[in-house]
């Protein structure tokens, strides 16, 4: 049984069909990439899967259970983690604080429990700070620091700096660190290397390869096709809200429909992607 299964997903915005009947499945431990020109509907697909937007039609299942239209906070408790294309760090929180928020859904002190009493209990625990809560917090801090350490000199020396003071690339790293803190069962990355230079991209690629090797299931949106080709077990190509090709990276990159889709969108500004595709196809 696939970990994530999407079937017949549709989302329309007025006249635009951003996602028009997408099927997708991701097996446990695999890395599937979604590529496609700008405006293809990739981010909208992510939003539909992660509950930030609700589909007009179709179904999303996770680990066999129907999660269509679930609120994002509920999905976090199922350990579905995502990063955002345009970067959404908590600007006034420190790097460490950001990563700790990533682990929020794992906190025993913050379990939802009963509607009103659960919340009051959470307040009481935060006020009293019994030993169990303090120990949990300390363990989490250690874990968060270990995650930050994976980003080496990029983040470790900056762990106490507020996120707004970081460079763009570092904010993206913080987002990924935050997602890892959830110890996700499924990680969705929306263009993790957008705005990064070559060295930084290579670093990110190495990190994602490492995550994959550790057994993490990943759904990746990426325009840099070299990276997609070398990381993915499967590539899904979208255009105009529809899947136009899917399969092994080698097969997809020679697919005429894919090349056509990228070339057809030259004026839309998928320039970088197009160039990468051409390079990858050589």
């Amino acid at each position, binding site marked *: 049984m696939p970990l994530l299964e999407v079937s017949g997903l549709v989302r329309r915005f007025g006249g635009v069909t951003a996602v028009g009947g997408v099927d997708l499945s991701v097996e446990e431990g695999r890395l599937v990439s979604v590529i496609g020109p700008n405006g293809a509907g990739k981010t909208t697909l992510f939003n539909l899967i992660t509950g930030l937007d609700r589909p007009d039609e179709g179904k999303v299942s996770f680990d066999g259970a129907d999660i269509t239209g679930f609120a994002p906070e509920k999905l976090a408790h199922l350990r579905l983690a995502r990063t955002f294309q345009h970067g959404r760090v908590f600007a*006034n929180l420190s790097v460490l604080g950001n990563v700790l928020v990533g682990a929020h859904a794992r906190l025993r002190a913050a379990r939802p429990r009963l509607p009103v009493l659960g919340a009051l209990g959470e307040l009481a625990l935060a006020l009293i700070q019994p030993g169990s809560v303090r120990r949990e917090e300390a363990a989490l801090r250690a874990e968060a620091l270990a995650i930050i350490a994976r980003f080496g000199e990029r983040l470790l020396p900056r762990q106490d700096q507020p996120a707004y003071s970081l460079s763009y690339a570092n904010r993206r790293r913080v987002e990924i660190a935050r997602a890892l803190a959830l110890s996700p069962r499924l990680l969705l990355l929306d263009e993790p290397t957008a705005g990064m230079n070559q060295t930084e991209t290579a670093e990110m690629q190495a990190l994602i390869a490492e995550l994959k090797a550790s057994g993490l299931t990943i759904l990746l949106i990426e325009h840099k096709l070299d990276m997609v080709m070398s990381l993915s077990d499967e590539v899904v190509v979208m255009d105009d809200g529809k899947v136009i090709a899917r399969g092994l990276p080698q097969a997809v990159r020679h697919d005429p429909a894919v090349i056509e889709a990228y070339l057809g969108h030259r004026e839309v500004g998928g320039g970088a992607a197009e160039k990468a595709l051409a390079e990858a196809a050589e």
Partner: protein
Amino acid sequence: MTSWLDHTINGLIVGNIYALLAVGLALIFGVSRLINFAHGSVYVVGAYIGWVAVAHLHTPLPVTILLVAAGSALLGLLIERFGLRPLQGSTKIAPLLATIGISFVLDQIVQIVFTPDPRALPSQLPDWRFQIGGGTIGALDILIAAIGFTSAVLLFGFLRFTKLGWAVRATAQDRDAARQMGVDVDQVNRIVFAIASALGGLSGLLVGMYYNYIDPAMSFQATLKGVVAEVVGGVGNIPGAIVGSLILGLVESYGIALLGTSYRNLFAFILLVVILVLRPNGLFASKRQLPPEPLTGTFIAPSKPVPLPTPALLAALAVAAVLPLVIAQPYLLQTLTNAWLYALLGISLTLIAGTVGQISLGHAALLAIGGYTSALLTLDLGVPVGLSILAAGFVAAGLGTLLAWPAFRLRGHYVTIATLAIGEIVSLAILNWESLTRGPIGVFGIPPISLFGYPIESARAVYWFTLAILAVLAALQLRLLRSHLGRAWRAVRDDDVAARSYGIALDRYKALAFITGGFAAGISGGVTSHLYSFINHETFNAQLSILALTIVILGGMGNVFGAIVGSVLLIGLPEVFRVAAEYRVLIYGLVLLLLIRFRPQGLFGTV
């Protein structure tokens, strides 16, 4: 049946007046995505310009109308140029706060120049009315309808057929795109403020003539009515604003016919909250849309907080604690006691507005709930005073959270509007629920504070009592801020979408903040009621909410120590320098404006 026609005509006429306000608000929102809280002040200034023209210059009606329109337009230009333009590129909340500050300053200036007393504003029109069906229409009704209609036609023509009007529409659609196409966006802003203010001023003139009554306090109500009409029609939607205004006028008119005048505003505010919750984009909004992507972290000024080590805080507390042994004048101690009570309100609001980013303008309602709870428990049920103050905290926490609940699903400026309306609803409920609250008379003879039978009446004892409460609650709040709750709250403020994606249920954490903040504010209100021994529905008014916000911004958003220092400065200094009451509010408004412009992170920084 006859009277129904009268109520309908009356509703439409009043709706027409609201439309002049709401259309201006919609225009401004359209081009600058700002809800202009200073709009009611322009309306008041318009009314007073009219009064000066009629009563002193004896101008004929057309000249009066022209003077009012021109004077108000000029005021709009000044507001835009000196109040808002300098804030371009600052945090999203800054212009909103600035318009609040501007409205404070303008209202206060009007009050100082013309005194707070109401005045008559005769309409200069013949006093005939003619009969239609069962109702009557007077000359003034026709004038109002004519001005409303003419303005709408002129505005439509301007937007539709002139180059500048096209620029306004282009800017409203997409500001950046318009700028790239060579539209002078600043000029569009100026024009829009001028037109909107001219309409707002005219509205003030017409209301003054309609009721033959003006006073400086009309400003706040006018802003609220305009905002209600605008929200009903969908913010930024000009035809929507007109329809929304007429609906509001009719709802009020029929409501008054059914239940009486004192309920008038209640309808407006309940309509507002219902619309905000059920149809936040207005009655005529199109399909559901995703919230626009925020530029993360721009809502609140980012800054490094000034580090305040615990020993320093303890030292400050120790100094505060020994002060009564050094200071002999009870007057100074009373002032500081007052400051501690405001600081309780401040730490409450700094949590909700600063830490969680829900800029509440109804915070005085929490004080009112606390004050009435403690007062009525002691007087009506014989509960001992200490216990009643504790109960005040719990009731304000519980009831405050329930009342704020509809605002939890809103974001940004809408939270501010909704909390403002909810605050007004509380105050109107207190006024009208006579069997419980004693209505407009207020509650007399509230017993002084005592604890376990020991009276706490000397200036010193009261000082220590309030200081101790403040110290305990501030320490608890700091403890919460250091826990995972503090993290979750700040995450909600910085980016609620990302926060949800990591498992933070917004309702739950907003509710926890309101419970925590409501408790502190309720205690403050409770203690205050026993110190004053008399409270009524005006004791905890909307001005207090704005003062609290100024305290919070002065100290730094979310900054507990900052809120305490802010309140000592804002309450203490005017007292020490014996500033007269009417200038005090002016100072608060100016402080707010200067802070937003020059030090948005406050004295101690955002936490």
